[in-house]
């Protein structure tokens, strides 16, 4: 496999031929108060249609990276190019699926209302959704297998259903780049598998998917590339190359340990988001 630097050279070369991918160059993003950097000098390229897992300890800047890519947080330094042009030139290009805990589930909206919000970006001011917007919403709901839930208030849904609603909304945005923040946290195995299958399908349609996750097994087996992040980029490339003992030690520090020739990452604190179905909360086991 090629090294990081070689990879970049290759993708830059590729971009001159078909500039349809995401390029991040020397990106630094500060926290709200501006005193500390959440991301520092991050550079990487994601070719179109690639499926990338972003892995790192809590506070590594995964969410910050996503929010910077969708243009939510202004960079201190560096640039983000989508299709070779700065973000903002094409506003419906990237869709962001938030973490479930960031959503107010008691808000009086139903499933269809939430998915329709994905269309608002392409609707001008004072305009109400058209027939084609409704059709796109319907299609997105069916794609996520939640057509029957269209009229249900979002507060009545299970965790997996809630995740699907927000994925359906992202689909309704018809993005080129799909960003999902911890989508596998707290969902059942069936929903997780369903989402991975959908990602397969989206990939064949040329959509770039960037997903943050704590599940390194998943990152290693179901993704084309992995990005190991801890404020800076620790490693980027094929998962097998990224998840080496050395890299994990660098990313997770004292939380990573060597046991019987395998690297274990201890992420028991802070707990709440790690307790999830089908996964041991304290230890994540890694194949080398």
């Amino acid at each position, binding site marked *: 496999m090629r090294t990081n630097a070689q990879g970049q050279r290759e993708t830059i070369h590729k971009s001159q031929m078909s500039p349809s991918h995401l390029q991040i160059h020397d990106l630094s993003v500060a926290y*709200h*108060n501006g005193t500390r950097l959440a991301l520092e000098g991050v550079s990487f390229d994601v070719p179109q249609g690639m499926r990338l897992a972003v892995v790192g300890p809590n506070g590594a800047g995964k969410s910050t990276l996503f929010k910077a890519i969708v243009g939510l947080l202004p960079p201190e330094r560096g640039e983000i190019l989508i299709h070779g042009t700065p973000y903002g030139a094409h506003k419906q290009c990237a869709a962001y699926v938030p973490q479930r805990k*960031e959503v107010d589930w008691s808000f*009086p*909206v139903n499933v269809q209302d939430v998915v329709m919000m*994905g269309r608002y970006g392409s*609707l001008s001011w004072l305009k*109400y959704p058209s027939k084609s917007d409704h059709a796109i919403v319907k299609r997105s709901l069916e794609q996520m297998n939640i057509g029957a839930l269209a009229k249900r*208030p979002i507060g009545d849904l299970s965790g997996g259903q809630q995740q699907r609603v927000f994925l359906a909304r992202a689909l309704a945005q018809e993005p080129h780049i799909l960003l999902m923040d911890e989508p596998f946290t707290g969902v059942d195995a069936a929903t997780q598998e369903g989402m991975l299958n959908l990602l397969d399908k989206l990939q064949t349609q040329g959509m770039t998917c960037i997903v943050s996750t704590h599940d390194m097994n998943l990152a290693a087996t179901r993704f084309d590339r992995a990005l190991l992040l801890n404020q800076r980029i620790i490693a980027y490339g094929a998962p097998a190359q990224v998840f080496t003992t050395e890299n994990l030690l660098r990313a997770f520090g004292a939380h990573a340990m060597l046991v019987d020739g395998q690297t274990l990452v201890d992420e028991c604190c802070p707990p709440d988001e790690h307790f999830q179905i089908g996964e041991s909360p304290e230890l994540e086991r890694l194949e080398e």
Partner: protein
Amino acid sequence: MIEFLTQPLAYGFMQRGMIAAIMVGVLCSVIGCYVVLRGMAYLGDAIAHAILPGVAIAYILQGDILIGALVAALLVALGIGFLTRRGTIKQDTAIGILFAAALSLGVALISTIKTYALDLTHILFGNVLGVSNSDLILIAGLGLVVLLTILLLYKELLIVSFDPVLAATLRLPTELLKNTLLILIALSVVISLQTVGVGLVAAMLVTPAATAFLLTRRLPAMMVVSAALGAFASITGLYLSYYLNISSGAAVVLTATSLFFGAYLFAPHRGIVWHLGGRARRANGRTESTNAE
């Protein structure tokens, strides 16, 4: 019975008071939905109290008191928006600072007015029976502007309230929308000055909308139900005020509060009784399923 209802309306001041109270009730209840959903109840209260210095200055300069109130409310609303813009200061802190400052400034200014001719109780608790025809026109005009804005910006305000992250992703001008909402709240507060007064307007912004929140599951329905509750509370409150000879603003707010507690207890899905019933149903279901096994 009919006479019971029509008799108070024989007076012109009662008719005007009734129309004003209904308009204000509907307006506050509709904009109040956003206040409740965005957790801005404290903000409504702050804007209401911020009116005081504006009223005092207008009085000293012998200008229109409503215009003074409007300017003060808008300044404080935008001031809060400005202080919290970069996230350096939390919103409740910014509100706490400006709220107290405006109130103090108001008290200081009023204490300089030697004559005290300005009737503070009217500002604090409203004087719905003193509404003039020109007041009615002003209330109707400003109220219409607020309601139309809510209608026209429905999807933008919905998205910026429910999911500011998506709003930013879609490149909506979130700051502008946030400030628009603050201005709408400020306008509603000023319009309510005459009917319920500074002290109680926060209740009109919050109580009917909170009641509607318990009764409905979708925003448009919540707004309609909230408006109906606001109108009902205003009408009932005025009759209570007339027959029991109590302050009109207080009567309106107390009626709205009774409705809220009714909903809190008995609302489907969200009421206390429903939850107790749900627990009982689940317990029954469990015994049945164990029996089946």
